[in-house]
């Protein structure tokens, strides 16, 4: 630890407060009992599947396609997860095997 216990606790409090605020935000605007505009209701319905698409991109945002290893470990592992899941439809297997494969690829195959 390079900083004091007190400061460490303060950092945790600040981080926790900021994250909670981002999640609380829409509930401040629409407290229970207040009518929710149809536009917001519609967004609430269609946003979740779109967000999942965005989150997949978000997870892969650091991938560099123009430099070694050209995103090959990510592409191979994502493909493995998709195929495994289409084949067995077992969450544990898809996630576990995909992660182990990726770790193997970045640690043992595509070494810098």
């Amino acid at each position, binding site marked *: 630890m390079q*900083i004091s216990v007190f400061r460490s606790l303060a950092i945790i409090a600040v*981080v926790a407060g*900021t994250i909670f605020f981002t999640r609380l935000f829409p509930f401040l605007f629409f407290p229970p009992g207040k009518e929710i505009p149809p536009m917001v209701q519609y967004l609430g319905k269609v*946003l979740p599947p779109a967000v999942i698409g965005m989150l997949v*991109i978000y997870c892969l*945002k650091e991938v560099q396609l123009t430099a070694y290893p050209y995103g090959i470990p990510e592409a191979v592992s994502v493909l493995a997860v998709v195929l495994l899941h289409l084949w067995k439809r077992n969450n*544990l297997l898809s996630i576990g095997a995909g992660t182990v494969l*990726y770790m193997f690829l970045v640690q043992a195959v595509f070494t810098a």
Partner: protein
Amino acid sequence: MLEGTADNNMGGTGYAEDEEMSDRIKIRKNSGYAAAFRAAFPHTIPVLTGYLFIGMAFGVMIQEKGYNFLWAMLMSLFCYAGSGQYLAVNFFVPGVSFLQMIFMEFMVNIRHIFYGLSLLERFSKMGKKRWYMIFSLTDETYSLLYITKTPEGVDESKFLFALAALDQSYWILGSGIGALLGEWLPFDGTGIDFAMTALFVVILVEQWMEEKNRPYELIGLGCGLLCLLIFGAENFILPTMLLMMTVLLSGKRFFMEEKEEERHAD
């Protein structure tokens, strides 16, 4: 569930023979939280896998800064965010101002601002529990709440609470294990955070099987990719959210008509 309660209230008189067996059924039906947690558990298994891995990755990282497993678990208890906690690891050194921390955390978690929009109604029926639901609204729990339907006979608000609480328990557990592992048997955890990617890919595939989700998933993928190319990895989430909402809102009529057609086809 209502039936079970009524039965129980009438008391145990008169039904001597099958008392024991029906009692067991009653207990199962009436113990609201136990039933909710039991029903919720299988649905949380994908998050269990993902959170143990990425929680462990966080534990390893924070341990390297000199914080033991208790610190790791404390942080997972109060902060509870994947990328938010990864980022926060960098704050435990001299020279980072609190204002900087707030700004960076806000930018990393800005997508959460929009998640509640899908859950306003569901959470408003949950009484005091809604505060915990809002606090625990991570990417994974959000996705889970969206794809999971409350089984019959289980109280919905207890069921949703159980999903959220189980998820967080995995996260806390994973971060503790990671910190201990990092201390006792150093291992190369490079790439372990791919578990998060794999988790979302699995959810994407699961949703893809329901045809009605496909256009929205494609919009999310497309907007994300486009904004990533334009704004770069650090700043693309807010533009992506705004672009997605613009596309979804301007296409509202089109999407709603499509839904109508589907309903007619059924």
